[in-house]
């Protein structure tokens, strides 16, 4: 007759570790093994608000100096990411459009519009294409433009109109 706990398997199956009572003491405020690094985040928050910028950077350098080379390498590439900026994605739309307007239409439609969701949204701004058209001395036929710009690929439409012959473009654009 099998008694509970008789075999090793059954023993394991019935065993329920007293997790709540045994594991809590190990999780001191500075324990970072929990995986989410909450303690580190809150420690960093405290230091961020209580130290002057200069002292913060000295502390950061001192901490990094004590780190093994492979981790240091990873930390550096993460920091390098912080120094880079998504100009089109993060700047106000009026500046982002101004930047893209410096590029040839074909690059806006073919490349910039395919970088990310934000870049796509900026590259599709009717205002941008209005500017590009105006720079070429063409005025927009507002009615036709409204029709074209309701299509999903407005950047490609704009580029097409620029690329194709003037006669084709004239269908959507009236002379200035």
């Amino acid at each position: 007759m099998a008694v509970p706990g008789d075999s090793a398997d059954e023993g394991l199956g019935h065993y329920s570790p007293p997790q709540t009572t045994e594991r809590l003491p190990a999780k001191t405020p500075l324990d970072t093994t929990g995986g989410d690094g909450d303690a580190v985040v809150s420690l960093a928050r405290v230091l961020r608000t209580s130290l002057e910028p200069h002292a913060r950077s000295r502390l950061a350098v001192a901490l990094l100096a004590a780190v093994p080379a492979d981790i240091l390498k990873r930390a550096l590439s993460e920091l390098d990411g912080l120094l880079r900026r998504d100009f089109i994605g993060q700047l106000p739309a009026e500046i982002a459009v101004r930047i893209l307007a410096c590029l040839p239409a074909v690059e806006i439609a073919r490349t910039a519009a395919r970088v990310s969701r934000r870049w796509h949204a900026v590259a599709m701004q009717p205002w941008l294409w209005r500017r590009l058209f105006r720079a070429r001395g063409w005025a927009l036929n507002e009615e036709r433009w409204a029709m074209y710009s309701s299509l999903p690929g407005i950047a490609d439409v704009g580029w097409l109109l620029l690329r194709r012959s003037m006669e084709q473009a004239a269908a959507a654009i009236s002379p200035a």
Partner: protein
Amino acid sequence: MVKLVSSDKEEFDVAVEVVEQSVLLTKMAAGHGESDEAISLPEVTGRVLAKVIEYCEQHKSDQKLDADDRDDVPKSSEDILQWDKDFMKVDQDMLFGLLLASNYLDIKPLLDLGCKTVANMIRGKSAEEIREKFNITDEFTEEEQDLINKEKDWAEDN
């Protein structure tokens, strides 16, 4: 002289002709009249403001742009003066700050210079190279990517 104070409380004493490069500062200085009260700029850090002032010092004797020219898109991103080119050899964080500051302070030539500089960083690169250069992470979902590929096919067929 006009006294400017950055968001991090750094103070700068600047000549009037330097201040006049900025449409916003010109208006603010006029509002202050003869008083030597400082103009505080909570939107601009000292690091960026110092760089903006350096630009304005260099360009203080430039001809003023006509009102008509002001709204134009920069015509080409290649016609940049050597001094301006060297001035723009900065990290991306500074370039970002200069774009925001020149837009806020309304310094049109500096805003255009910044835009041209970023455009030159984008020019000729693939979408992937651009993502890498600017550390861009908000990529398309698979669905959106399909839609974009369709757009592309459509444009090439026509």
